[in-house]
């Protein structure tokens, strides 16, 4: 076999591998979260837990959490570990952002201070868990940043539906975080293009 033929076969094999790899990266998990003892299935974070021997670089793009009409928007945002979240104030009143802990760890408390309309303050979330966002000017304001270990996550819509895209084939552990419910853990096998899961979050 000539060197040219070998090279051609390698190229074809590589192309097939890449195509197959591309197909596997296009997998997705679709699902629905039901709740028991909780008012709404909205704003529940669903994410793939840490994958052994797999590390992910922090995303380059940040996420914006707005403060508008004296509310954090969105109410719950899930981000990959290492993501920078920019906190924007769109109101004509001063707002403050702080969190007393991350998942109960009070050593991770942080206060970004108070700032006026139109300004942003960034913070890189490197610790896993949920940060309960508060504003000490307006105590009724509440929001959450849920920091998860993988880039495979979603937040449920008002009906509890969620969709995690671009997930490679494999077996994973799916977890949930919700404001009022207990965490749920469920194994999921992502082999088909679309895997469907049903989750239940209880109070």
């Amino acid at each position, binding site marked *: 076999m000539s060197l040219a033929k070998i090279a051609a076969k390698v190229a074809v094999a590589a192309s097939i591998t890449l195509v197959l790899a591309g197909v596997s990266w296009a997998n997705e998990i679709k699902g629905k979260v039901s709740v028991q003892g909780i008012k709404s299935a909205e704003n529940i974070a669903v994410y793939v837990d840490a994958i052994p021997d797999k590390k992910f670089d922090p995303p380059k793009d940040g996420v914006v959490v707005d403060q508008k*009409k004296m509310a954090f928007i969105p109410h719950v945002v899930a981000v990959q570990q290492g993501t920078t979240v920019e906190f924007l104030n769109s*109101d004509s*009143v*001063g707002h*403050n952002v702080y969190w007393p802990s991350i998942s109960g760890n009070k050593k991770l408390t942080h206060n970004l*201070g*108070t700032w*006026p309309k139109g300004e942003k303050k960034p913070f890189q979330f490197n610790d896993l868990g949920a940060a309960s966002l508060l504003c*000490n000017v307006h*105590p009724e304001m509440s929001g959450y940043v849920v920091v998860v270990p993988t880039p495979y996550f979603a937040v449920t819509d008002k009906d509890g539906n969620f969709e995690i895209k671009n997930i490679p084939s494999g077996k994973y552990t799916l977890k949930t975080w919700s404001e009022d419910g207990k965490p749920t853990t469920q194994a999921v096998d992502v082999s088909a293009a679309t895997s469907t899961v049903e989750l239940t979050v209880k109070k």
Partner: protein
Amino acid sequence: MKGRVLNTSIMASLTAVVVVLWVMLASVPKSSAIPAFSRKYQTSCTTCHNNYPELNDFGEAFKKNGFKFPKDDEVFVKEPPVLLGSKAQKEAFPGAVYPGEIPGYLPIAFRYEGNFNLNRKQPPGAIQPTSFTPRTDLFAPNTFTMISAGSFGQNLSFWIDDDISVDAANGNGGMGDGWLKYSDLGHGIGLPKNALNVRFGQFELDLPFTQAKTIYLSPFDIYNQPTVAGSLGTANNSMIFGAPQRGIEFGGTPNNGNFNWSVAVTNGSNVGKATRSSKDVYVRLSEKFNLERDPESRNAIQAAGATGPRDHTSIRLGFFYYYGKNQQNQDGSISTNLATIEEPFYRVGGDLRFKYRKLELFGLGMFGHDDNHLFTAGPPATIAVAPAVKFSGGFIGANYWLYPWLIGTFHYDAVNSAADFVNGTPASQYHTRNRFSPGFQVLVRANIKVVGEYQYTFGQPYTDPVTGNTLFFRPNTFQTGIDYVF
């Protein structure tokens, strides 16, 4: 022995009940206060109050703006108002009723206050037949107040508060304030925003430190000082500076709310009917100096810092003057042979308030002067100018926020009145009636407070029943209680 065991058991049970109640009340707050504005804007009491009813910087700005957010009010209103006519009706005016609006919700809130009083034991000689004070008194004065406040569109705002019940049934409650305010009257002639407002009705004067909405359990004594000459002459002026008045007030808060002016014309008879034809005049001027170093904080409504918002570091200096002409013998009660006697009077004073982060210091000095006459029955009946009846005094105080929910308070009140001393009303060991009042306030929730205040007051004379000597007794009191609004 058995009695002691029983007492111990009762005390233990009571202590347990108190501890349980305290734990229930003091557990981690979940809810916020919901009086009228909280409902309208779906926001907590603490947006406007650091320690209700005292206003913080934002609350002051909200009040000065006619109970509206200083900017973009419509954005924050969660309960839209009911329009009493389309906004386009303005163009049709005067061919149509000018359009207005009423709150979309019923703007009513309620407040309850009930205190536990622990009084110092009275010595036997100090107990008068009609003034026995028991050691303890539960839930006094037991006041239930209804408050209604809001806005009727762009420029009109209103406030009504009424003590529905004081000291339980058939108490001497009544209306405190009831007024309508038109803000920004000078807009049409190019005056700065809120430089000229007008207020009608019954209202507390623009006092340097409010008496009606004070955070303290005890009043500012100087505000309550009447002028009664008694044996020294005819002066008998019952006008209470700190009580509401009926009248009209013009005022404004230009310079971003830092300068405040007001001129009120009042009956001078507090909440009663007018007792004389002349009207009284009250003038108040104050300037707040923003001492915030950070320009961003200086320009914001509330100062910002790494630990969140707080009131600006500021100092406010003020001046006030009240003038009236009291009248005696209008109905010939002194002598039918004499005409009405006019006795001009004035109150004048200055005030200071300093805020630095968690600390607030304040003080007020005031001087009162009433013309006075001496009446001789005769015959012939004569009236002659007598030395004026004067008093002076004031208060100083401090509040410190140990936590956002725990506030240490203190105020010292003093009133010097030679006339009071001579007339023995109330009797005092010295010319000065004074009182130290340290206390605490715990915001159990944003709308529920546990308050406490110890009142160390001046010595009052009594006769020792054994020796016949004049001794002095301080009727000190510790007050604590609950205060909630909803």
